[in-house]
């Protein structure tokens, strides 16, 4: 799976939770879930569950804590897929 495909999938996953829609316009690896997209922090656990379902992986609590940007999410997903 290419980086671009993964980022596109991440974008689709987070879209329903985004409260600042402008943040989606220049969505890239640097996009921060909380500050750029204004996702309610309580919804981050739902984003994680959706990512797990989409990529058929399991994201532990430690990995979850490091998942603040789309780039973080991409790296974690890639690492899990390769395992």
């Amino acid at each position: 799976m290419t980086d671009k495909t993964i980022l596109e999938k991440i974008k689709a996953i987070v879209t329903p939770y985004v409260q600042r829609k402008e943040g989606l316009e220049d969505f890239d690896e640097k996009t921060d879930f909380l500050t750029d997209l204004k996702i309610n922090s309580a919804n981050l656990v739902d984003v994680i569950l959706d990512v797990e379902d989409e990529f058929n992986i399991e994201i532990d609590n430690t990995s979850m804590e490091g998942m603040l940007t789309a780039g973080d999410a991409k790296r974690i997903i890639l690492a899990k897929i390769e395992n």
Partner: protein
Amino acid sequence: MEKRVVITGLGICSPNGVSIPEFEESLRSGTSGITFHPQLKELNFSCQIGGKPEISETKLAEYFTPLQLRGLNSSGIVYGVISGTDAWKDAGLEISDGSSPDWDTGIIFGTGILGVDKFREAIHLIDEGKTRRLGSTSVIQTMASGISAYLGGILGCGNQVTTNSSACTTGTEALLMGYERIKAGKAQRMLVGSCSDHGPYVWGGFDAMRILPGNYNEYPEAASQPMSANASGFVPGSGAGALILEDLESALERGAKIYTEVLGGEVNSGGQRGEGSMTAANNEAVQRCIVGALKNSKVSASEIDLINGHLTATSKDSVEIKNWVQALSSNSVFPYINSLKGMTGHCLSASGSMECVASVLQIDKDFIFPNINCDEVHPEILDLISEERIPRKIIEEPINIIAKASFGFGDVNAVVIFKKYV
């Protein structure tokens, strides 16, 4: 000085109508909302019928954002949010997107138990060792105050926002709590109401107590028979009712439509003493509650045009009538009396607020809705009051004052007095 309190908005999610015009039409025509539920049959329920408001996907999308709809599995929240939002709009209030809430408006929206289907989902996941799969929505949909919290966020209320719970008196109690708050000058407006989830996990406990009718599974619409000689138990229901209470001055200033005035009321408990118990009412407490409500409202028994009773369609209906007769102890004629539950079943924690909405509509539109499924009045009731006091056909005449009562498990009582605003 004490504030006068009026009602300026109504909302409803009833088994026989999910908007005020639809509900009013059903009230007038005596239309039942009770249906057969195959799921209850599959689960070996004795009573396989119930009252459940029909909400389409399209309607849901009008009240909830796509994000709120993700994983939404709490019927009480659905009914409560729809009725509460409708009452807000009916009162002509705006939903502001501004950064600060409306400090003068609060919410008291009760429930008996919230989000049982959501809770069941969670229990299954937890028992499978998959607690982390619960996501973020489990807590907010199953906490009792979830309903006031959802409404508080949608409407942006900054005064007291809370949920009360007192079994089948919940809705009427919520109204009186909101009334007290406005009367004391602590809020300008209060959205009050209550909701109740539907389904086997709410209704099962009552089926097990054998207080639901088991012989009407093929005739759901005929099953709920308040005051009838054939009353054989209450039919379980669900839904929500909502009302906007408002300081009279504020309502006049806004030029709002005023449905009725809330004159006052009373809440009490029989303490489960005397004939009172967890499940039966102490009659002295019921009578004191009625008398107290009249006194607090400065109304005499002879001024009451209509009683909207609790009257669940069990053999205890005659005991309730006896309490009214003794509490009113007037030389004048007994008021008309009706029960919504013939059409909706007993909507449990939602019943009080739904019946308050029905009461307010009857005053506003000058009619008395018919008691359905009561062809033959219970003989013990006929010993107490004259048969024509129990209308079986709609009566259209000016209605000035209604006494609305709700009684609940735990031996708790609430009576409110509504009066036409002129």
